[in-house]
Every structure is written in C-alpha cells, then in structure tokens.
C-alpha cells in the first residue's frame, strides 16, 4: 500500500540552495542567496564588503534588516524602491532580472553596481529562492 503523507518540515535548505552556496563560496564576485521570503540566507566574502558585515557574525538576515544596510539610488540620485531592485523582481516574477544603480558604502562613498539575479528552481520545479551577483561598474563617485 502506498500512502502520501503531509509535507515534512525540513531543517536543511533545499539542495539547490546548498549547491548555490558552494558555488558562491568559490567566486570572487559578491553573491547573495535569498529564500522565497527574501531572507538573506548567505552572502559570500566579497559581498561582506557591500554589506559591511560578516556572514559568520550575522547568519541569515530578514529582508527588512539587510535591505537597509545599503541605500540604492538611480543616476539622478532618486532613491529606488525595493520593488525596483533586480533581486526583488526575481522573487516576485520568478524570472531573471538585471539592473544598474548606485549604492552608498559604509565609508560614505557611492559606487555604481550592476546586479544580475536569477531564480532557483530545481528539477521538481520547486521555487526555492534566488541568487544575485553584484559587480562594480565604475570607480567611486565622490
């Protein structure tokens, strides 16, 4: 007899998230990994410079916490709403997204960065979260 039971609550992340971290750990570009709620599950060492925090110190961070650590704005200096950020677009649409904008770092200087994000959807078509890759476009804007 075969009986399907209720979905079990797992302790470990989905394998697609775990393998994303293993990739991020080996990259020299900043990488964020978020779950479907936007909780920042992991950021690699290069991303620690963007956030000004170390992953070993913070662990996972809710979106309300990590999104306030940098203030994104456009070329005209207008503050960007969360929904305008590539990673948030990916979470809502479950599609890849790309964008360039400015952020202010902890030392007060501004950097133009590009962000490419993509959804993590595994073999069983389950949406597990998203990955964002960051890189600096230009030299710091004083």
């Amino acid at each position: 007899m075969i009986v399907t039971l209720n979905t079990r609550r797992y302790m470990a992340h989905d394998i697609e998230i775990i393998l994303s971290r293993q990739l991020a750990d080996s990259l020299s570009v900043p990488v964020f990994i978020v779950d479907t709620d936007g909780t920042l599950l992991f950021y690699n060492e290069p991303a620690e410079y963007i956030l000004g925090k170390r992953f070993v110190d913070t662990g996972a961070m809710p979106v309300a916490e990590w999104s306030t650590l940098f203030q994104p704005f456009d070329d005209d200096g207008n503050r960007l709403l969360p929904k305008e950020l590539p990673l948030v677009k990916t979470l809502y649409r479950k599609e890849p997204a790309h964008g360039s904008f400015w952020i202010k770092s902890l030392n007060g200087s501004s950097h133009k960065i590009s962000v490419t994000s993509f959804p993590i959807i595994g073999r069983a078509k389950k949406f597990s979260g998203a990955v964002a890759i960051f890189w600096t476009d230009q030299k710091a804007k004083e």
Partner: protein
Amino acid sequence: MKINLLGTRGSHPISNQESVYYGGSTPCIQVSSGQHQIILDAGTGIVNLRSSRSEKKEHHILLTHLHMDHIQGLGFFEPLFDSESEVHIWGPVSSQDSLFDRLQRFLSPPLFPLSLRDVPCDLHVHELADEKFTLQGFTIFTRFISHPGPTIGFRIQNGEKSMAYIPDHEPMIGSLDIYADANWLSGYDLCNNCDLLIHDAQYSTEKYLKRVGWGHSSIKHAAELAKACGAKHLVLFHHDPSHTDEMLNSLFEKFIDGNDYTFPIELAREGMEIDL
C-alpha cells in the same frame, strides 16, 4: 527491520580473488520487516536476492539515481518477466524526460534485448522529489542530494528505528571539510539521528582530491557527515572498484587509527546483514 547488503561496490562490478571478502556486486540493498520488503537500487547485487523473497508478487525497487552501477541489474530482476508480478520502480524526477523514458534508454535495444514497455509484469513507475510517504509498512523520506544528475537519498523509518541510504554523495565539492551548520549540509534531513547510515566512501582523502566533482565522498566526508548528523552507526559503502580487500582494510585502519569517533564505523560487505 533487516537490512541485507546484496551489492556494495561502486562504479562497476568486479570479480577477482583479491576482492572476495567485500564483494564485487554493485549497489543493491534489501530492507525487510515481517512480510514487507523494499529494494534499494538495482545494481548487479540484485541477482543475489534470495529466491524465497522473489516469490512475492508485489515488488518495490527504489532507485537513488540512474547511473549504470545502480540500475545494471534491473534487467535481470526476474519478477519483471513474470506476468503475475506487480513491480513498482521509484526514482528521482528530472526536469526533462520522465523516469520511464530514462530507464527505457537502457532497457531497450540495442543495449538490452527487450524494451521496458514490453515486460510482461504489471509495471508502475513513480517519480520522486523531496517527499514523505509510506510503503510496505515503512515510512520513507526522500531528499535530493549532491551528486551529478538527479539523485535522491532515502531515510527509511520502521517503528522507532531508522536507516539512511546515501550511496553516492559529495557533500562538499572540492573540500575535505563540511559546513558546520546543519542547514547547509546536503543529506542532513535523511541522516539526522538515524540508527544506521549507509554512505558513500569511495575514495581515500588523496584520491578524492583527484576526483573533485565526480560526486563521491572520502571516508572522512562520510564520517564527518555522520558525526554532524548524530548517526549512531556508519557503514561505509560504494567501494572503489580498484580497491582490493587488503587495500580497503588498510585505508579503513589508517583512517580509524587517526580519529576517535564515538559511533561504530565499519566497511560494507556483500552479504552483510544488519538488524535494527
């Protein structure tokens, strides 16, 4: 729950005088409790199934993945060719082809004389992702794990006892250490506090570093994962086909002598039976 190791060798079957003790058949495990039985993987060890068991009319074969060493015996599983048998094959879902179509690639001419679609038994093929279900009185959990291609591991619960079966697994790609945080451990939910963990340990540490990304563990990977998950007994499985009995003993003794794990660790041996 009785666990009978019918095949413990990885990659391809071997037969030589130097490997008689640990055996040369590829992965297959019979798990039984009373009249209930399931079969884990269908490597060449499946031909070692006892005839009394094969008289059953309902059969369940649970495949971790479709690499050849895990399905090579499937075409020689006699109930497939018995019109009075009901055979259920369970295996990992893929984002593209169905499980049936993927199995059919092997079980069809020119690689096999018959086509899977033409076997006379009452055949059912079930696709699995991350799931929990009961089968033959066992509660079964499945999770995708780190190994090339769609691959799942199994946790089988029978009353208070549990076993985890992860025969092909590279928990950390390119590193001999594993993450300290359980949230980030491939296979953690399968092994967590299990009474028995049967786990890939194909490589020595030195050989692993030459086989990064091939999807297998060193003995250290297996032991560290078992330790992190609180497994109570570890059986090292999926032996490298180039490792003779003497080499396996030597690798194992060298590893054990340098460590002080608090749970029993032993090498899987074809024909080994474990009672839980």
